[in-house]
């Protein structure tokens, strides 16, 4: 991902590095089919050949019916994590987040690729792992702590703190099967929170527990990452938690990293992807086939031809519209721009100097926004087709949405977000 690896290693303290991680899963049930495959695989191996089933496999899209029995839950994942960083891993269900965490926490091995680490990794994939209902809370603290890699001595040293943090003091000598589910989670989280690995992997712990405890848990995790300088990999569907905890994020989609960057942008990217489906290009079949015109496509492209539009690219808004009548010149296109909060930013149209006159047949109308015009965020456009600059004959709100993400900024400049949604460039000059 980095453009200059040499520079990277000098300037950044990389604690964890994933290189070309892929994970293949077999679908369907285990039966005679798997036995034949196993035998075939074994036969290839003893002849020194490559695993025949590694070549096949499809992108993991659960909604479409695939051809192959094998899917890639993860494909060529590369990323680096700096010491003390809290990396959010976001993505829809089935995007491969949990698989990635499982590989990171050594629960399962990658099919290909390596993960290199400079610190111990402890995982908190689901709290309460290994709790035994018959044992008391105190015994379970020891057992769970040991499962997570602590020694008895370490646990004893922290026992009081753990019990205090969990708020289960009264029940600590009662078997855990008598606990409410909330209490179990609190106790389990307390154990995990007092772990001392260099890298902590956390998956969806905040889904449970009441508001007060969630607040406490987030606070504790902030302490872990900020105060104690530990590295955290955090997976959650709670965007607020992700935003408030993480510094950087990667977005997974169908097992691939589709976005990597600041957490605000990662979340915007993820949200825009999941809410509105298509991002920056929309084809219309017959939805807007009107008497006067037919709307074919609206697209927004950055210069980089990426599906991501970065703030530091010229953005080209192209409207593909076919007019059916000779008097096409009477019509004008007007767009209204809204930010992600639904606030209208401004309206714009191509008719103010009459340099663009629409004609009969297909019109490809381009509107270019200069670099750095948009601030990173989500935007949506509403389209109006106006007749004789008087009244509109067609209107469609939110006809297309798009996301502008952080571009590359010079090292040393302000990396945060400036207020507002747009950053128009005006003519500045020195008058004296």
């Amino acid at each position, binding site marked *: 991902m980095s453009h200059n690896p*040499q520079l990277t*290693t*000098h300037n950044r303290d990389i604690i964890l590095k994933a290189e070309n991680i892929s994970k293949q*899963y*077999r679908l369907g049930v*285990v039966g005679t089919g*798997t*036995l034949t495959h*196993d035998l075939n695989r074994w036969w290839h191996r003893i002849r020194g050949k490559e695993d025949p089933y590694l070549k096949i496999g499809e992108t993991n899209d659960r909604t479409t019916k695939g051809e192959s029995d094998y899917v890639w839950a993860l494909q060529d994942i590369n990323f680096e994590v700096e010491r003390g960083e809290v990396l959010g891993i976001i993505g829809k269900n089935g995007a491969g987040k949990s698989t990635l965490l*499982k*590989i*990171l*926490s*050594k*629960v*399962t*091995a*990658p*099919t*290909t*690729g*390596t*993960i*290199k*680490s*400079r*610190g*111990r990794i402890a*995982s908190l*994939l*689901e709290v309460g*792992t*290994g709790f*035994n209902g*018959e*044992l008391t809370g105190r*015994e379970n603290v*020891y*057992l769970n702590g*040991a*499962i*997570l*890699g*602590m*020694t*008895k001595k370490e646990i004893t040293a922290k026992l009081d703190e753990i019990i205090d943090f969990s708020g289960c003091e009264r029940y600590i000598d009662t078997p855990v099967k008598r606990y409410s589910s909330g209490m179990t989670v609190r106790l389990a989280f307390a154990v995990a929170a007092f772990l001392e690995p260099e890298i902590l992997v956390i998956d969806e712990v905040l889904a449970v527990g009441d508001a007060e405890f969630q607040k406490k848990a987030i606070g504790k995790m902030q302490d872990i990452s900020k105060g104690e300088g530990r590295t955290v990999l955090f997976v959650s569907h709670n965007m607020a938690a992700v935003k408030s905890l993480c510094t950087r994020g990667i977005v997974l989609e169908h097992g691939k990293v589709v976005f990597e960057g600041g957490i605000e942008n990662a979340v915007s990217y993820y949200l825009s992807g999941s809410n509105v489906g298509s991002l920056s290009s929309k084809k219309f079949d017959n939805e807007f086939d009107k008497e006067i015109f037919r709307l074919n496509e609206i697209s927004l492209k950055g210069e980089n031809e990426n599906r991501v539009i970065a703030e530091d690219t010229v953005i080209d808004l192209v409207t593909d519209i076919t007019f059916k009548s000779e008097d096409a010149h009477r019509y004008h296109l007007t767009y209204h721009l809204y930010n992600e909060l639904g606030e209208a930013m401004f309206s714009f149209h191509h008719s103010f100097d009459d340099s663009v006159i629409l004609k009969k047949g297909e019109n490809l109308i381009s509107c270019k926004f200069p670099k750095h015009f948009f601030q990173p965020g989500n935007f949506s456009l509403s389209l109006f087709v106006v007749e004789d600059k008087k009244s509109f004959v067609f209107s469609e709100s939110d006809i297309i949405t798009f996301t502008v993400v952080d571009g590359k900024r010079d090292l040393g400049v302000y990396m945060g977000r400036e207020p507002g949604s747009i950053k128009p460039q005006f003519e500045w000059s020195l008058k004296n």
Partner: protein
Amino acid sequence: MEQTDKYEEDWLFEITPKNRFFSFNLKEVWQYRDLLLLFVKRDVVTVYKQTVLGPLWYLIQPLFTSITFTIIFNTVAGIETGTVPPFLFNLAGITVWNYFTACLNGTSNTFASNAGIFGKVYFPRLIVPLSVVISNLLKFGIQFFIFIAFYLYFYCSGAAISLNPLVLFFPFLVVMMGILGLGLGMIISSLVTKYRDFSYLIGFGVQLLMYLSAVVYPMALISEKMPKYAWLIHYNPLAYIIETARYLLLDIGQISIPGLAYTFVLIILLFFIGLLIFNRTEKNFIDTV
């Protein structure tokens, strides 16, 4: 430049698709020794929770099995046990045999029954079968205690029984039994992860194996009565262990040094094969379990 390279290489560990052939990571197992003890404690403490008789169940099972065997094999079928009371003869065999089956059954389920926890957190998987073998050792201790009690009872009531002076080697025998159970268990547990067929095989296989392991008869009896099929028993390492156990405890039967040597080599071999297969399986079993 050189410094960069050095830093590049300076990783604490790597996660790779497959374990290296002989990387057993025993150091890691040692780091998790507290977990091993806690698992043993958990197994011992929780087994008979919410039962009235509690650990007494440990005693009831071998006692009743011995009584049944004594009635069927000695009273009805008429197997001779020499001067040793048949009940004590059977109890000795069953106690040792039970340790083996407990180890085998416990460890052969390692992956399947711990999938939940293995699927969420990493620790050296070997800890689990090891804890099974150790906690069963405690169970064996309790059962052995009842054997001693009956031994004393029969001794005091005048039965012609005596310890063999070599009885000091008995603990080695128990350890061998444990390692054999562990080795076979690890092999089977690895196979069970993908193909459950093996867990059914183990179910009745162990029962049948008992009859081939000289638990209810002296080894000499088979050679005498069924010389054609005696090789089945003579190739069975379990038969040597049980026969030797009775030789040490009751001074009955024979001790075969070549047999024991064969057993020893086989056990070590099975153990290492088990360790190897287990090691290969532990990385990916969660995908197929």
